[in-house]
């Protein structure tokens, strides 16, 4: 057998190595084609406990959290692309990410969106999204954005105005939060939910705590509108009593006074008398500067 000179041998190696690598890659393609049916099995969580993974990570849990969050994003993106609305692993992936790094704010915020969006764009699980964000609030009490997200989830997805207002209000108390905006949101959401008392409390606190004359003016306007709304509700109750007694609706406030259901003509906070409309319900004087809360 003839011996190759070192120069020739290295040239042969330079040619042979890429060729052998190409052959290995070709074989891998063949192997992949044969085992493609196993692909579906790959999408699973071998360890579903974030706490266990945290222990097993030997102190590298922040990096593992990033990996799991990236996996959650990739999982969501792939599933949205497929369009069948099955996101079975999304919640566990988010739970693991946030257990490994409880301060991974982005995972709570975007995770809640992924979970709460209606199918097929999201998992349609607002309940899970709320649980996730609540855990985020507990682990990050100084992150007002999570309170804000929680409020939005209750407000937009569940139309549950009382907890939404409570979440906005909690966020407004976090140092560094845009407290005025959050307080306004809390007040208006509470108002929408019919809780005049909560709404009035928030606006009154806002009126007293702010030094901005514009905000004070706006808070005062809202407080007056709320007072008018409360008066109207009270008047409507009297109208119903009148209707029970006389089997017809009253045409004016004067009829209520004549029936001794009212002692005098009530006025709104701007000093304009209330009226009874054609539908038999109380209403503001058209000249009154007070506008109902929705306007």
């Amino acid at each position: 057998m003839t011996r190759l000179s070192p120069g020739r041998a290295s040239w042969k190696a330079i040619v042979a190595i890429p060729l052998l690598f190409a052959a290995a890659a070709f074989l891998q393609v063949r192997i992949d084609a044969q085992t493609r049916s196993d692909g579906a099995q790959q999408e699973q969580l071998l360890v579903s406990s974030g706490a266990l993974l945290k222990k097993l990570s030997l102190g590298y849990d922040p990096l593992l959290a990033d990996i799991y969050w990236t996996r959650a994003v990739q999982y969501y993106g792939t599933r949205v692309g497929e369009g069948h609305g099955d996101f079975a692993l999304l919640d566990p992936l988010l739970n693991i990410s946030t257990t490994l790094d409880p301060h991974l704010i982005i995972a709570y915020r975007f995770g809640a969106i992924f979970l709460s969006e209606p199918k097929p764009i999201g998992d349609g699980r607002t309940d899970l999204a709320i649980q996730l964000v609540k855990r985020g609030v507990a682990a990050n009490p100084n992150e007002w954005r999570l309170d804000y997200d929680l409020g939005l989830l209750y407000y937009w997805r569940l139309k549950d105005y009382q907890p939404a207002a409570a979440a906005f209000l909690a966020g407004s108390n976090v140092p560094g939060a845009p407290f005025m905006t959050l307080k306004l949101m809390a007040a208006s959401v509470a108002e929408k939910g019919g809780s005049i008392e909560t709404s009035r409390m928030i606006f009154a606190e806002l009126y007293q705590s702010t030094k901005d004359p514009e905000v004070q003016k706006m808070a005062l306007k809202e407080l007056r509108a709320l007072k008018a709304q409360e008066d109207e509700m009270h008047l409507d109750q009297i109208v119903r009593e009148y209707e029970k007694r006389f089997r017809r609706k009253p045409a004016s406030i004067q009829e209520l006074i004549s029936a001794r259901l009212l002692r005098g003509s009530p006025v709104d906070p701007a000093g304009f008398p209330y009226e009874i409309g054609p539908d038999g319900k109380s209403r503001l004087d058209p000249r009154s500067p007070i506008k109902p809360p929705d306007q």
Partner: protein
Amino acid sequence: MSAMPGVVAVNTFREAVRDRVLYNLVFFALLMMGAAILVGQVSIGINRLVIVNLGLSAISVIGLVMAVFIGVGLIHKEIEKRTLYSLLARPVRRWEFLVGKYGGLLLTLVVNTSFMTVGLAAALYYVGRPFVRSDVTVLVAIYFILLELALVTAIALFFSCFSSPMLSTLFTLAIFVTGLFASDIRDFGALTNDRAMEAFTRALYYLVPNFHNFNAIAAAGHGDRIPLALVGENTLYAAVYATVVLVAGSVVFARRNLK
């Protein structure tokens, strides 16, 4: 004080450089570049976080691998090559040799970590975020990693004073993992409701080196403040523990029969 440990330390560092130990920096650089380019494309909102977490984890892992695998071979290699005999024939005491070896490996680790810190800073700059005051936490986290490596190196060197490299590696890794779970061991004892077991696990908790003390990667990632008192206490803890281990190692090494 004798200058011998310093001479041995410098030579150990030179030997490490000659052995191309610092080649790992190429791997680190590639890892940082890859992460900086790729992470923005596969995830949402964690560019900087991944760079910090990955960078610090890599600094820690690479440092640990170096500390353990080089540390356990430092004494053994000198015995195997028979260079230790000619060295000890000179006016070098065994403990000086041991401390010198420790200092040399520590110097190697400090130089290596410094280069990796520069790489990490470059990657952070690449992902387009100006440096802010809270980034000091990243430097503190790197300092904590160095303290951890100082302790691991001392332990590896201790075992290498009387055991083979293979067994020394196993022992060092076992101590490292036990140290990471120190608080779990203590909590386990409390769960048993057995006073003796509780006292035993509590004693074990204080006996094993608590490596969890040096983990500030999460704090660095989120820019959380690390109290200055903790920095001082961790420094003292590492210094005291490493001294204890090195003194024990010196005693063992002094009594070892090298014939």
